[in-house]
C-alpha cells in the first residue's frame, strides 16, 4: 500500500521543481532553440527555393543564349550571303562595264582601221593611177614608135569601140 500512496512532500517538490523547470526552460531554452531551429529551417527552405529559381533562371538564360546564338548564326549566314551576292554583282557589273569599254575600244579601233584602210586604199589608188599613167605612157610611146603599130592600134581600138 505504501508504494502506491503518493507522498505529499514529494508531490509538492515535484510540482514546484517541474513548474520552475517549465518556466525557465521555456524562457531560456525552448524559445531560443526552437527559434534557431526554425530560422535554420526557413533559411534552408529559402535556399532550396532560391536554388530552384536559379536553376530555372539558368535554364532560361541558356535558352536565351541558344536563341542568341541561332540568331547570330542566321545573321552571319545572311551577311555572308549578302556579301557573296554583292561580290557576284560587283564582278558582273565590272564585267559588263569592261565589256562595254572593250566594245567601245573595238568599235573605235575598227573605225580607225576603216579610216586607215580607206586612206591607204585611196593612196594605193592614186599611186596605181600614177603607175598606170606612166605604164600607159611607156606603152603608148612604144606602140606609137612606128606607123604600122599606130595603124594596128587604131584598128584595134576601132574594133573595141564597135563591139561596145
Amino acid at each position, binding site marked *: 500500500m*505504501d*508504494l*502506491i*500512496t*503518493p*507522498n*505529499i*512532500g*514529494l*508531490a*509538492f*517538490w*515535484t*510540482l514546484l*521543481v*517541474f513548474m*520552475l*523547470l*517549465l518556466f*525557465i*526552460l*521555456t524562457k*531560456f*531554452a*525552448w*524559445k*531560443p*532553440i*526552437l*527559434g*534557431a*531551429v526554425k*530560422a*535554420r529551417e526557413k*533559411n534552408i527552405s529559402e535556399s532550396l527555393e532560391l536554388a530552384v529559381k536559379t536553376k530555372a533562371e539558368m535554364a532560361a538564360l541558356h535558352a536565351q543564349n541558344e536563341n542568341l546564338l541561332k540568331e547570330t548564326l542566321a545573321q552571319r549566314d545572311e551577311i555572308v550571303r549578302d556579301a557573296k551576292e554583292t561580290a557576284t554583282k560587283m564582278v558582273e557589273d565590272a564585267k559588263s562595264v569592261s565589256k562595254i569599254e572593250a566594245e567601245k575600244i573595238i568599235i573605235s579601233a575598227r573605225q580607225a582601221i576603216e579610216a586607215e584602210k580607206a586612206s591607204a586604199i585611196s593612196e594605193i589608188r592614186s599611186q596605181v593611177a600614177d603607175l598606170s599613167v606612166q605604164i600607159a605612157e611607156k606603152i603608148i610611146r612604144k606602140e606609137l614608135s612606128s606607123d604600122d603599130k599606130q595603124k594596128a592600134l587604131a584598128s584595134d581600138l576601132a574594133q573595141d569601140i564597135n563591139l561596145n
Partner: protein
Amino acid sequence: MVLKNAIKSIVLSVMTLFSVTVAHAGHGAKEEAEFQVVETIMHHIKDAHEWHVLGDITFNLPIILLDNGIKSFSSAEFYHGVVKTDSITGNHYTVATGKGLGYAMFHEKIYKTDANGELRFEKDHVKNAKPYDFSITKNTTSLLMGSIIILLIMFSTAKFYKKNGAIAPRGIAGFIEPLIIFVRDDIAKDSIDIHKYHRFVPYLLTIFFFILINNITGLIPLFGANLTGNIAVTVVLASLTLLVTVFSGNKNYWRHIFATPGVPVPLLIIMMPIEVIGIFTKPFALTVRLFANITAGHIIILSLISIIFINKSAAWGFLSVPMALFISVLEILVAFLQAYLFTMLSALFIGAAVEEAH
C-alpha cells in the same frame, strides 16, 4: 563477517541502482541469518530520508516537517536516534533525538510520538498522528539533481545556437536537437491541430526531458533513485497533463463529453458519466504506466542481483550479473520509451481537447 558485508554492499551498490543497507544498526544479527529479499527490494524502490551511497558512506538529508510551523533538522537525528521495539508487535522504530525530539520514524514514515515518546501499533500500522512531511528526501534530491542536469544540457544547447547562429548542430546540440525536433514534429505536430500545437510544445518538451533524464539518472548505479517510479511524481505529472487538457478544451471537446452529437438522449444519460470518468482515466493510466514500468525495471534488476545473496554464493554472479546487465540495457530503452509514451499520450489528449468540429 565484516569483509563479507562490505563485499555484499559493494556488489549490490555497483550492480544495482543504489546501495543496500543489509545490516541495520541494532538488528544486524537477525538480517545476517536470512537475506530478506522482499524487504531489501522494497527498501530500494521506496523513498528514504538519507542517501546511502556505498558501505558506510551515507548522506543525511534535511527533514522538513509542517506541524504547527516549519520544523527542520537533519535526518541523522532519526538514523542515529534511539531504536525502540514495540512490546506487543515487535516492530522496531527509531525515535529522534536533539532537534527532532517528539518524532519517530517507522519504515521511512515520520510520526509524532505520544506522551511517553513511543509509537502505538495496531498490527503493522502506526496509530500515531503524522506531520506533513516535506523533507528533502532521496527522491527530492534526485529530482533536484536531475533538474540541474536538464538545465545544464539545455542551457549549453541554447548557448550553442546563441553563439553560432542557425547552423547545423554540433556537439551537445547535435544530440539534443533531434530529440527536440522529434517532440515538436512527431509528437506535437502530428497529434495536435497544426495551428495550435506551438502553444503546447514547451510543455511537451519539458515533460519529455523531465521523464527521460530522471528515468536515466534512476538507472545510474549508486546514485540512482527510483524517482519516476514513485507514484507521487507520476501523479503530479499526469495531473498537469489533465489540467492542460481540461483548461485548453474547447466547446467541441466539452460537447463531445456532455452531449455527444448524434447520440439519442436516453443513451446520453449513460454516455455522459462514462465520458466524464474518461477524463480522469486517461491521466490515471499515465500515472500507473510510468510508475509501474520504472518500478518494475528496478525490481527486476534488484531481484536478479539478489539471487547471489539468496543463494549465498558469488558464483551465482555469473548468472545474475549478465542478466542484470541485459535488463539494465533494456531499461535504457524503457527510459526512452516511457518518456515518449507519456509525452505522446499527453499530446494526444491535448490534441483531442483542442480539435475543431468537422
